[in-house]
Every structure is written in C-alpha cells, then in structure tokens.
C-alpha cells in the first residue's frame, strides 16, 4: 500500500509538488533561522565570556553570594598555586585572574593639590606578561589614543573619564582606594592610553591596570577576585563537567572561603537570556507549523476536492473511510519527509554560507564592535540537520488531518455521487 501511495505521489505532481514546495521553503527558513540563532547565541556567549563570565569562573563562595557588588575583600588567596594546579589539570584551558575594584581617581595640579576627582571602576588583568587578556578584551582596538601599558605603573582609562577630568596621555594620576583589609591606600599611575569600548558601563568609568599593580595597590598579594577559564571552543557540557569535577574536589559548602567554579550558563543573566532565545525559537517553530498547516490544509482541501472522484471510487471498491483517511495522512508523511530533506539541504547550504562568510554589522554598532563581534555568523550544529523535521512533518500531517476531515463529514453516498459529476 505504501508503494502504491508513493507511486501516486510521484506520478501526480499536483499532489506532491505544491505541498513539497511550501514545506521545503518553510523548512529551509527554519534551518537558516535556527542556525543563525545558534550563531547568535554563540556570539552572545563568547562576548559575555570575554568581558565577564569566562567559559567557567572560579570565585570564593562568599564572593559568589555578593558577586554583583564585586567584593574584592572576599577574594581568593594563593592564586598562583591555584592557577598552576588548574593549568596542570586542564592544560587546554586558559586560566586568567582578574580583580574588580572601585576607587577614586585624582588629578593633581602643579602643586600636587587635587584639581579634579572622579569615581572609577577598576579592572586588574594580566597586561604585561601575556597577550591573552589583551586579545580577549580586544584592547588593541579599544585604545583610541596612546598605547598599551608596557611597564608597571601605567594605566588605561576610558575616554569619558579622560574628558571629565581633563586627562591627557602621559599625565600622572593618583588612585585612592581601600585595601582588601579596609585601610586607605593610594598610588600614582601614568596614563598610557585612552580606551573606548562602545558600551556605557565600561566607558563611563573604567580604568584598566596590570594585575600586579592592583595587587600591590590593594594589598592583595597572590589574590584575585575571580579566575576565568577559557576553553578554545565553548562546549556547554564540558563547562558543567569541569565545574562539577572541580567543585567536588575543592568546594566545601560549609566553608565560605572555599572556591567554587561556575559554568558560564549558570552565571548571572546568561541562563535566562539563552532560555529566552530558545523560547523564541520554540515560538517561531510553533507559529511556523500553524501557518504552514493552514496553507497545507487549504491546498489539501483543493487537492481533496479534485480527488473526490478518486475517493468515491475507492469507497465503492470497498476501502473504508478510515483507511482512506489514514492513507492521506501517510501520503502527507511521505511528502513531509521528502520536503524536509530538500528544505534542510537547501537551508544548510545557506546556513553554511552564513557561517563561512558571516554578515558584517559593524556599521550598525558604532564603537561597540570592541565588545561585540561585528560579524554575525550562523552556526551549524547537529540539531540543524533534524530541527526541520518538526515543522516539516508536523505541518504536513496536521494539514492533511484537517483537509481529510471532509471525508468523514460527507456521507459515502455524497462522496460517491461527486464522481458522477
């Protein structure tokens, strides 16, 4: 019977061509959209990882409780040893210590009297003994004036602060703050460069200093607020596995200064954002199935009317209504699968091009390309190969189900008579 139906579909183009065309087009859009969204999520993840979360992040449990306030008095100790162990256990991952802190930047006049003052948000990272952070933070591109710090005692400041406080390259500025243990501290820095990231939080009051200067300044020898881990290629499962492993060995819930590793997706808003995007995808597929079903229902109806003659004869020959109905659905499954394969194939070709070439959106972003990737790319994952089957086959079946109801609504005699006319 399956063979019989398949023959009918192949020979009667009008039975298969239009539905296949519609479904394949829809499936193609789904695959492109889905892989595009994959690429977008991936970009979001990478951008967040670079500036905030890492692919995994290690902090103390106490710090984690208040992580939004970046409380460096709850930072980790013995960071050198920790990074050594980590690098041995997970050599494929790059481990980078960071310190976030707040302070006051003071611009003195010729008499060393305060001329102007402003609050700043400081970031201490490895600037001097490796290029990793420089590349991750895209500093080359962010520096609009001056250059990277090349020795201790040099500082990068955001353009907003420079303008507000009237600071020039090579000016000397004084940073005031409180140490990890709460006492007042101050240190002088030479401004080596002025940076613009293109996002407000960073541009408003950021200063970037080599982490060893920050450690000295805040009395945080061998400490760090956070250690970020970067995998060469992000893999959600791996981040969870590594985190579980690490926490099993090192994390003690009863010990507030024990360390805890948190995968990217469990940090802050990431899980929420990714879920929202996944939901959008779900919505898209649902709407798509709905619209396609309506279209296919209609084409199925038209086709059905054209086929009442055939249906009438089949009833007369002794096929039951249920059997005919099921055979129409079987046809729709064959059509759905065929169309999905075609649509997925074409969709993947486009998705591949979007993955390979990407679309440059830097003209929409002003300076934000420092933080955000300016090339949007699709990303093909294994699920791209199968995602199309959900809308493709479902829409086809649902369309046929609705269209076929006519067979039940009309009585046999009526269907049979339509073949006479």
């Amino acid at each position, binding site marked *: 019977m399956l063979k*019989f139906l398949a023959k*009918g579909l192949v020979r009667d183009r009008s039975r298969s061509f239009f539905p296949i065309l519609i479904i394949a087009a829809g499936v193609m859009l789904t695959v492109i959209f889905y892989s595009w969204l994959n690429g977008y999520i991936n970009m979001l993840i990478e951008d967040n990882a670079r500036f905030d979360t890492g692919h995994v992040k290690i902090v103390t449990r106490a710090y984690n409780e208040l992580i939004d306030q970046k409380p460096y008095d709850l930072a980790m100790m013995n960071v050198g040893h920790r990074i050594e162990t980590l690098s041995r256990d997970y050599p494929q991952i790059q481990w980078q210590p960071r310190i976030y802190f707040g302070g006051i930047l003071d611009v003195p006049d010729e008499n060393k009297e305060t001329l102007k003052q402003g609050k700043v948000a400081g970031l201490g990272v490895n600037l001097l003994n490796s290029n990793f952070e420089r590349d991750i933070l895209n500093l080359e591109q962010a520096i609009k004036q001056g250059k990277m710090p090349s020795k201790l005692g040099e500082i990068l400041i955001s353009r907003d602060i420079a303008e507000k406080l009237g600071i020039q390259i090579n000016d000397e500025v004084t940073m005031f703050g409180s140490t990890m243990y709460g006492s007042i501290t101050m240190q002088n820095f030479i401004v080596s460069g002025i940076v613009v990231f293109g996002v407000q939080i960073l541009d408003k009051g950021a200063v970037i200093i080599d982490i060893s200067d920050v450690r000295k300044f805040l009395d945080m020898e061998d400490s760090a607020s956070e250690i970020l881990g970067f995998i060469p290629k992000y893999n959600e499962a791996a981040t969870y596995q590594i985190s579980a492993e690490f926490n099993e060995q090192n994390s003690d819930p009863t010990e507030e200064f024990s360390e805890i590793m948190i995968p990217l997706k469990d940090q802050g808003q990431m899980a929420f954002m990714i879920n929202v995007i996944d939901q959008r995808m779900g919505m898209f597929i649902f709407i798509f199935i709905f619209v396609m079903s309506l279209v296919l229902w209609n084409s199925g109806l038209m086709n059905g009317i054209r086929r009442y003659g055939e249906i009438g004869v089949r009833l007369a020959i002794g096929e039951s209504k249920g059997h005919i109905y099921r055979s129409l659905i079987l046809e729709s499954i064959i059509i759905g699968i065929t169309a999905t394969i075609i649509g997925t194939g074409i969709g993947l070709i486009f998705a591949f091009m979007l993955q390979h070439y990407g679309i440059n959106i830097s003209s929409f972003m002003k300076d934000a390309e420092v933080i955000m990737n300016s090339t949007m790319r699709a990303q093909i994952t294994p699920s791209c190969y199968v995602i199309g089957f959900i809308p493709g086959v479902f829409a086809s079946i649902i369309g046929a189900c609705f269209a076929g109801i006519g067979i039940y609504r009309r009585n046999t005699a009526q269907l049979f008579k339509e073949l006479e006319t």
Partner: protein
Amino acid sequence: MKENFIEIKHVKKEYPMGTNKFVALKDIDLNFSEGEFTGIVGPSGSGKTTLLNIIGSLDSQSEGEVIVLGYEVADLSSSKSARMRSENIGFIFQTYNLLPVYTVFENVEFPLLLLRINKNERIKLVTEALKWVGLLDKIKSRPSQISGGECQRVAIARAIVKKPKLVLADEPTANLDADNSHNILKTMKKINEETGTTFIFATHDAKVIKYLKRKITLLDGSVAKDELVNGG
C-alpha cells in the same frame, strides 16, 4: 441457486429538498437470486442509480429492509459495509472511473491490495482478469493512453478481479459506441455464465436489453414491470 441472495422489502428512499422531501423510490419489493444477469431499466430520474447504490451499500434507504448476501445493509457500520463491498461486490460505472495516475495493471490490482492478498496471488488474479477482458497487452498503459472501450474493459477487470459474488454496473455502455457496447456485454455475459457471478445493471440502452435474462422496469420510483426475457 440461492433464492434470497438479495432481498428488498418495502424500500422507500427520500431526498430532502428544501423543506419538502423528494421521493426517489416508493415501496420497492424485489428479490434477486445468485447468478442473475438482470437489468434495471427506465427513463432518466426513475431511480435506477438510487436503487443500485442502496444495494451496493453506498447509500441507505429511508424505510424498509435491504438484505444483501445475508447482511442487513442498514445495520452495517461504515467500515463493515466497506468490508462487505471489498469482499463481495464489484462496481462498474458509466464514466469508468479508473485511477488516472495508475497503470492498467495497478488499477486492476487495487482491490486486491485492499484485501491484503499477497503479491504472487495478485499477479495471478490480475493477469487472469485482464485475460477475461482481452487487455493483457496493455497492462503498462495509463487510462489516458487507451480508448474508452478499453477503459471500460479495465473497469470490468477491476470489478471481477477479486471474484466477487455480485457485480453492480451503472450504465456501463452509455459512453460507448455500438461495437464496444456489444463487446463489453458479451464479456460480462461470458463471465456470468462461466463463473456464476451475479450481474445487476442500471441502463436505458436498448442494446443491453437483448443480453438480459431478467428486466426490471422502474417508473417514477416504482417497479412497473419485472419480467424474464430472452428465455432467462
């Protein structure tokens, strides 16, 4: 021969027509025996098709009883009546109604697929049926590639391939020229004589009459005459 092969008792058929009802069959009483070769004749609108459809369980009567092969047709569910048709009744139509996308062979094979007959048996039965109607050389053709007379012969093969007890034919010759009509009728008659299959026709074609063994005349939904003819 079984006497009560088909029994029709006080059958009435009404069609709703606006607020009124149109009576297509009024109080029909008829019996058919196995092996008959019978024509229902009468002018257009006299109720021939309606009666045939009721016998074939494609339609149901408004009143009265119809028993076909021992089944009370009105009591059968739609799937049971489909099964009954599938196993026992072959249909032939004025307009052939072959499935256009399938070949001659596949058209004749279709009823056997519904009966889940295995492939070797199907090939044997289809070949046999096509031999009856003399179309073995056209098995790969599509309906659009053969003449009307040949189409009707395919339709006959399709009706008899499952060796049904009863064949119902509604105006089988109406679209055919004289030669083809005689040809078809001879074939059906031969099948009737050699296999004992019962044939009931609805027709107003005079050419058919001389082949019949029994002639039932309908007028305005009533049996006007029921006679044996041609020495039947």
